[in-house]
Structures are given as structure tokens and as C-alpha cells.
């Protein structure tokens, strides 16, 4: 078996010059306890987890940051819930203060029901944040043109959805994801829609450089086991893509030769 060391592209994901130890990014939303979160982080092998900002609870601050520190992962703040470029930009700036990072997972959604991104606001926010020095990772839809425009304004990666957040429907339009990957000059991270390990493997096989997964793991019956499953799926997909799969054929190809068959 070819050693993974021999294949630099298998060595992990690089975003904005920073090498991540894993192609799997983990969303922290939805875990029922810090223990389950910590276990899932460990099982996933992830190096980066997302967090959000909400009004402080004066009654008692959680120890989320402590948990993440103990797990040794970096924090990627998001702008979840923002509907306008203005909101998202301000939220990103708050996040920079809160976490001392200029990385931001940019979310600008179009409505509460679908949580789908708003292309126009998203692009405007991305441009402003890039100008302001942020490393912008935008959650986007599966439109190849928008993905390229996000790259053109300087985003460090693009994060197209497979299907709506939390839906678990997997990748509704693999064709579009392939188009995005084929033309991207920055890493493509499949974000949203993953339901299970095979979805993650498929994302990588289609050409994605990474996968961000939240609900599929945090809301699984056994989050840590699913974290490990998705991590293995990512790894499987990565090896499979590098291995050069057979082409799909609409006819059979014998795996045992006909020649020499005895006449009995």
C-alpha cells in the first residue's frame, strides 16, 4: 500500500497557509452535554470546531472554552443567525474580540425555515470581511458561480451545502458540488446536509477537500461513535479518490475470465 506520507495531498487540509490535522471540521451545536462534545471531538480527530456568540447568561457562564482548550482544538466562530451583511460583519468583529482569531465561518441566511444562505448579502459580507483582514470561510449554497465569486473576493475556502442544515439529506446535487470542486482554487469544504458516514465519503470522492459536520454527529444516538464514523468516511473518501476509481459502466465486466472454463 502506498504510504500516506508519500502522498502530500493526503497529509491534511490547508487553509490560508494553516495546515489542519484533519479534513473533518466539527460543529459544536446540538450536543446534549460537554462530556458528549468532548468525546466526539476526541473520536473525530478534528482540529477545528465551530462556536457561536449569544448574549451572555449572567446566571452562570459555561465552560465551553475550557472544554475546547482541554481538547486541544482551535475555535472557528460563526455568524449563525445573521440575515444581513451588516449583521454578519459586526458579529465577525465581535468574534474576533471574543476569540482572538481572524478566522470566521461566515453565515448569512435568507430565512429561518430553510437556513439557506442569501447569495447577495453573503458576497457583500465576505468582501467587507476580507478587506478587514479576516480569513473568511463562507457557508454558501451549491451554486458554482457564487462559489467562484466568493473565491474571487478573497475567501480562504468555500463551504457549499449538500442539503439544508440539519436535514441529513446528504448531497442533493452531486453535479453542482463536482462543478464547484473542479474549478475551485481554494479548499472546498462540504458544509451542511451530511447525515451519515457515506455522505462524508462521497463528498470527498466528489472532490471536496474537507467536510464540516454538526447535527449528524451531535444529534446521533451515539455522537462519539458517529464522529468516528464520519472521520473514517472522510479518510475512506480521501484514499478512494487518490486511488483512482474505476469508471461507471452501464454493462457488466467479468471479474473472472471465461477462457479455460471446463466442460463438465
Amino acid at each position, binding site marked *: 500500500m502506498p504510504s500516506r506520507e508519500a502522498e502530500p495531498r493526503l497529509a491534511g487540509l490547508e487553509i490560508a497557509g494553516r495546515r489542519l490535522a484533519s479534513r473533518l471540521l466539527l460543529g*459544536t451545536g446540538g450536543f446534549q452535554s460537554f462530556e458528549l*462534545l468532548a468525546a466526539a471531538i476526541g473520536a473525530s480527530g478534528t482540529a477545528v470546531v465551530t*462556536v457561536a*456568540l*449569544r448574549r451572555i447568561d449572567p446566571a452562570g457562564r459555561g465552560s*465551553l472554552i475550557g472544554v475546547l482548550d482541554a481538547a486541544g482544538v482551535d475555535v472557528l466562530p460563526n455568524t*449563525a443567525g445573521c440575515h444581513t451583511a451588516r449583521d454578519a460583519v459586526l458579529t465577525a468583529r*465581535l468574534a474576533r*474580540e471574543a476569540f482572538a482569531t481572524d478566522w470566521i465561518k461566515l*453565515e448569512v441566511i435568507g430565512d429561518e425555515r430553510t437556513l439557506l444562505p442569501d447569495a447577495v448579502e453573503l458576497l457583500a459580507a465576505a468582501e467587507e470581511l476580507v478587506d478587514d483582514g479576516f480569513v473568511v470561510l463562507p457557508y454558501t449554497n451549491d451554486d458554482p458561480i457564487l462559489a467562484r465569486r466568493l473565491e474571487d473576493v478573497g475567501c480562504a475556502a468555500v463551504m457549499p451545502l449538500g442539503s439544508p442544515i440539519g436535514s441529513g439529506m446528504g448531497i442533493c446535487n452531486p453535479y453542482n458540488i463536482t462543478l464547484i470542486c473542479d474549478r475551485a482554487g481554494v479548499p472546498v469544504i462540504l458544509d451542511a446536509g451530511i447525515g451519515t458516514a457515506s455522505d462524508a465519503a462521497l463528498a470527498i470522492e466528489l472532490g471536496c477537500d474537507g467536510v464540516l459536520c454538526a447535527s449528524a454527529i451531535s444529534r446521533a444516538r451515539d455522537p462519539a461513535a458517529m464522529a468516528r464514523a464520519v472521520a473514517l468516511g472522510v479518510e475512506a473518501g480521501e484514499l478512494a479518490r487518490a486511488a483512482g476509481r474505476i469508471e461507471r459502466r452501464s454493462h457488466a465486466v467479468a471479474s473472472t475470465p471465461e477462457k479455460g472454463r471446463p466442460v463438465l
Partner: protein
Amino acid sequence: MIVLNGSPRDGTPSLGVLLDELGLGSDARGVAVAVDGEVVPRSEWDRWALVDGARVEVVDAIQGG
């Protein structure tokens, strides 16, 4: 009067005093502050004055997607 995280509150303390009351020093991790739609850099928390009616948002890290 100021508005802290959407709730009116008597008095117009300085931001530093307000954060002290919340138990937040300038080394509080995962916390950020905006006043009237402007983010207040952590280094200026202590000396930032609040005007009457100021809308103060103090946010904290939570689990999220």
C-alpha cells in the same frame, strides 16, 4: 439608563464597572462587547464611557453549528 442585552437598567455606569459586575475582566475568554452597534476592543473596555440610553451587548461563546 442603559439597555444591557435588551433589558433596560437604571444608571449609567462605565463599561468597565458594568463588566466588573458581570464578573468579566479583560481576560475573559469567549466574551465580546458592542455598544450602540460598535464593537469595543477588549483593550478599551476599562476606559469606555457609556452615554445615557446606550445599548450594550455582551456576548459569550456558546455551542453552535
